[in-house]
């Protein structure tokens, strides 16, 4: 116990780590706030730069960027009605009307306090539940990991993007990209086309930078000339009465956020939308109607998306399965540093776990400090024209791709993925599942084969193993339910149910 506290306090007591966390949080707020720069983009580029650093330094910076970035999106959502990040879409619904009424400062202040509140709930959940889950996860077999990974990719594929088929395609494509190179079990080449370059595989950080950085930059070129709206900012420190009043809404939203964040594959964006929806339903008599500047509608998504940060770390650190796109990128960073996220992480490297917990808490404190100060300077930086920003992003992406192995070929990959990712995005595909697939693909492959070898290559035994073990069986049911709900069969069932309900209403 005492030891854990020692690890927890590492970044609180070391001035250098303290500085890195602060710098990360500050940078994250800006990255999140500037539309077109996403946290995922920033973290994937950062990983390529920090992989030579010590693990603690790199993680301190990345945790700061993550926490700051999720929050930062709310700023532009409130001030300009442009969500800086997907997780701030719900924030704009009520935040912007508040700003239009001249309450921008109040909205920013309330958002900051509630985000920090949500963040702490998420971190507390991580500290409490991750060790329990890790103990439980020791009972998981390769079958269960295979199912968990498939559920994760399926969740990302279904909840984002235009159609289920597009989500599945993106996920499977990612899995294939992850397969390229020498097979880790037999050292046979897969998709190498007898070239030495491909034998080492495609570095996943380059794929991330291509899909999240370059592709996004090309998409952003469509909206180069969005006019910036200037808002007057008055009072920033929220009223204590307000904080007390919306405490319950924030508490509920944080709970939702933590759980959604912890589900493999779903992150802050979905958490925020669900929490907004929940707050809308739970608030019977809002002071101002939702959509016209209700403070409940501002508090709920912001508390939820920051709570989802802590939640997203739970499956990543305990199962090795990322909770959302950003943790998928962070898991890549852990691999690069030679760590193996999974149930043994807490046993083998407990310091890393408690360090992360302490770090996230610290980043939330910095969030409170930076969030409530320096708003005026802030609005100036966000007004930086995209015409300057986009070329800079591309240079950062190129350097990031090169820095991983000092190999110019990786920059070509980056451009290839960037152009391909651009077309995918334009035609309504999401790139999140691709990245999740790249990270989880090799893990799924080896777990599938282990399970199959365990079943002595007999398909009947293989299937029976899934049904006869309780954990596998529950996961299999969850997977199938998710799958069926997305196929025509599920749609028919839903329609039938809806029809019956409508009939019942008509009769009553």
């Amino acid at each position: 116990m005492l030891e854990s506290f020692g690890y927890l306090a590492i970044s609180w007591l070391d001035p250098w780590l303290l500085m890195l966390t602060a710098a990360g949080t500050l940078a994250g707020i800006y990255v999140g706030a500037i539309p077109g720069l996403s946290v995922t983009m920033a973290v994937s580029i950062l990983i390529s730069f920090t992989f030579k650093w010590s693990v603690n330094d790199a993680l301190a910076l990345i945790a700061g960027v993550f926490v700051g970035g999720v929050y930062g999106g709310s700023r532009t959502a409130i001030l300009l009605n442009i969500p800086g990040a997907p997780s701030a879409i719900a924030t704009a619904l009520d935040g912007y009307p508040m700003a239009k009424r001249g309450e921008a400062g109040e909205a920013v202040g309330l958002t900051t306090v509630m985000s920090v509140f949500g963040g702490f709930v998420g971190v507390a959940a991580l500290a409490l539940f991750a060790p329990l889950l890790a103990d439980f996860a020791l009972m998981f077999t390769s079958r269960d990991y295979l199912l968990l990974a498939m559920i994760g990719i399926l969740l990302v594929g279904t909840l984002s993007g235009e159609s289920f088929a597009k989500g599945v395609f993106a996920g499977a494509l990612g899995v294939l990209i992850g397969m390229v190179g020498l097979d880790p079990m037999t050292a046979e080449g897969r998709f190498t086309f007898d070239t030495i370059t491909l034998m080492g595989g495609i570095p996943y950080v380059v794929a991330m930078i291509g899909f999240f950085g370059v592709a996004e930059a090309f998409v952003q070129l469509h909206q180069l000339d969005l006019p910036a709206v200037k808002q007057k900012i008055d009072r920033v420190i929220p009223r204590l009465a307000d904080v007390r009043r919306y405490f319950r809404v924030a508490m509920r939203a944080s709970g939702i956020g933590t759980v959604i964040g912890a589900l493999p594959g779903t992150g802050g964006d979905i958490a925020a939308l669900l929490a907004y929806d929940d707050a809308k339903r739970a608030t019977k008599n809002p002071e101002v109607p939702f959509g016209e500047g209700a403070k409940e509608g501002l508090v709920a998504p912001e508390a939820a998306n920051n709570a989802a940060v802590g939640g997203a770390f739970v499956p990543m650190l305990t199962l090795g399965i990322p909770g959302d796109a950003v943790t998928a990128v962070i898991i890549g960073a852990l691999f690069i540093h030679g760590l193996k996220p999974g149930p043994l992480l807490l046993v083998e490297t407990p310091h890393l776990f408690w360090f992360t917990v302490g770090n996230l808490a610290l980043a939330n404190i910095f969030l409170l400090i930076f969030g409530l100060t320096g708003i005026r300077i802030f609005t100036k930086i966000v007004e930086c024209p995209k015409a300057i920003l986009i070329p800079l992003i591309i240079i950062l992406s190129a350097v990031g791709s090169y820095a991983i192995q000092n190999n110019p070929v990786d920059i070509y990959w980056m451009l290839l993925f960037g152009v391909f990712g651009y077309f995918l995005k334009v035609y309504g595909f999401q790139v999140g599942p691709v990245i999740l697939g790249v990270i989880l693909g090799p893990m799924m492959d080896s777990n599938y084969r282990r399970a199959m070898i365990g079943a002595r290559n007999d398909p009947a035994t293989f299937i029976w193993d899934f049904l006869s073990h309780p954990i596998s069986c529950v996961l299999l049911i969850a997977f199938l339910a998710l799958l069926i709900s997305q196929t025509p069969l599920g749609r028919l069932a839903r329609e039938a149910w809806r029809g019956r309900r409508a009939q019942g209403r008509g009769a009553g």
Partner: protein
Amino acid sequence: MSSRAQRRPGELAFAVALLALSLWLFGEAFKISGFSGLSTPGVFPMLASGLMVASSLAILLKALAMSPAGGGLRQFLADITPLRQTVMVVLVGLYILAMPWLGFLAASGLFLFVSIQFLWRRSPWLTALVSLAGLAAIHVIFTLVFQVVLPKGTLLQGLY
């Protein structure tokens, strides 16, 4: 999940291209170890590429069911690959190709100047100033904070 009634320009061609890509990848996956066993290196790639074939088929069928985008190639060029995107992709390509030759600093400086001038359209002096400032910031951050090795060019004996 929104359902559109009309295709985006080029969507059908893209769906066909994805199907072709998936089929080719499935063929490559089959070549790894064929159907020789259930735990061979080729099984999982075949499963994944098989899924890609199935889902791209579904995407294609859905695209076929939508009404055509109209406008033909001209609309595609205007909506999907406008001049701005095309020029930028070409510029990035040139930048990447020039980097081993010119070195990181010179290539990046040129790229910044040309692309900002192209996108921003202000006075060249202002663009030059902005690019120089950006380049200086990147250089300082990378060499001092991140200590990243930046590619040096062969021209001028790797001076830059």
